[in-house]
């Protein structure tokens, strides 16, 4: 491999991850899917990050040679392990998630997004938690209300309206069109959450727009986003 490998931890059917890996394969991008955790060779020594080993596509990869890791999974799901006996699938998925949380956290190379154990990719926050962060950063927010009545399911966050603006924070870059103040807000929200990859929504494109939500999964298949990822890892 000419370049240092860049692992993309993703579901086997994650088309955006596959597109990104295909486009940047010559630069070392490799797909890491949950079933790879059942290929022998994985190692983690607590307190000795240099001893860590991953197994993906071409075989064993010493963690010390990695250029970086992009995480596109919050956890390993039992359904992603069809090769494991059904009775063991829940337990094995928990064990793999726990292992990966420790393995990714110990890496010295950039990890986008770093785990927030038990999440493998940044904090799993509800909109209310994002709003609290924004308020703490003096970023204007739209009021939020979470009301649950007996038997009602957890409401999904409302989809961004047509007037909404999306900015993607990718490493040090902010991609998308919006007022410079919004770009600064997006940057501070990502930094505040400890995330290197984050989509941020505002309810308009002017400097007084309010923060309305965040998306942990920027579209890696977007060329400008993919290139910014590679740039941030160079």
């Amino acid at each position: 491999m000419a370049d240092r490998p860049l692992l993309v931890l993703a579901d086997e059917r994650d088309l955006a991850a596959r597109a990104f890996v295909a486009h940047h394969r010559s630069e070392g991008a490799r797909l890491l899917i949950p079933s790879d955790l059942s290929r022998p060779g994985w190692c983690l020594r607590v307190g000795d990050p240099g001893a860590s080993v991953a197994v993906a596509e071409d075989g064993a990869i010493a963690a010390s040679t990695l250029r970086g890791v992009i995480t596109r999974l919050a956890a390993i799901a039992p359904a992603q392990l069809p090769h494991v006996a059904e009775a063991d699938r829940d337990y094995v998925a928990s064990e793999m998630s726990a292992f990966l949380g420790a393995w990714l956290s110990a890496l010295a190379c950039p990890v986008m997004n770093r785990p927030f154990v038990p999440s493998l990719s940044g904090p799993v926050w509800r909109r209310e938690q994002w709003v609290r962060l924004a308020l703490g950063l003096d970023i204007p927010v739209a009021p939020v209300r979470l009301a649950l009545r007996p038997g009602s399911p957890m409401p999904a966050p409302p989809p961004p309206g047509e007037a909404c603006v999306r900015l993607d924070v990718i490493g040090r870059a902010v991609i998308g069109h919006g007022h410079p103040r919004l770009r600064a807000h997006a940057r501070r929200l990502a930094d505040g959450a400890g995330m290197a990859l984050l989509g941020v929504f505002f309810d308009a494109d002017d400097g007084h727009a309010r923060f309305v939500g965040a998306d942990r999964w920027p579209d890696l298949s977007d060329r400008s986003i993919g290139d910014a990822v590679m740039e941030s890892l160079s």
Partner: protein
Amino acid sequence: MSLRPSGPVLLWGSPLDLPIAAVCTALSRLGTPMFLVDQTRAGETSIEIDIEIDGVLGGWIQVGDQRCALDLVRSVYARPQDAARAVDEALACWLELTPALVVNRLSAMGSNSSKPYQSALIAKAGFAVPDTLVTNDPDALRAFWRRHGSIVYKSSSGVRSIVSRLAADDADRLARLATCPTQFQEYVPGTDYRVHVIGDEIHGHAIDSEADDYRYAESGVRLQPWRVPDELRPRVRRLAASLGLVMAGIDLRRSAEGDWICFEVNPSPGFTFYDAEDDEPIARATARLLTKG
């Protein structure tokens, strides 16, 4: 001058859970008001919750015909059996938002869901941890086993498992190791101690047992209240604080050489196993902490 909160302590879990029951009793003795979100009755009792952020955090939770204003809650004792239902998910979210004392926030409990991750944090906080290898490579395991002579295996995740010594009979099972990276640790002989950090209070117990995992020993486990040595007290406080835990059950072993080795920090300790003395000091300490808010 800030006013001490006078609202209730919110308890989240099952009243059949021994620590919840013990804390309820201790709070009653202090005369502290309580509001129980009883997960065991969620099916038969309506639970509603309303959380609002409009500049400030507000809202309420209602269980049956009892309503509690969330901004009046002085503290929370959280031991949810699970948080999969929508109302539990919403309450877990509120726990992350409220400025009230929470014992403990679910986000702070997260480190315990990956034991090797937590081991690294424990080491960073200054405690020795057992040499740990997580692998699905039989050759790496054999080398680790040879190096230490005696090793144990246990779950990496928060799913409970019995810590077991790897024996020669297990060699045949190594072919199945590839399925999933598994956690192995050097076996450290010594005496077990459990330390509970509860706010500023520290309670210790010495455990006398021949079992590899005393929690599952069928007999022969003897617990004795134990005064935590002065030099250890600031270290365990710092360890709990470094993990963001207001209350923690810390598993220590003292090696033959006198070193303190930390195996795990339990963020939701089932302290009643240790709190056998008549006056239940751990439950009372927890109630005092929650009452103070």
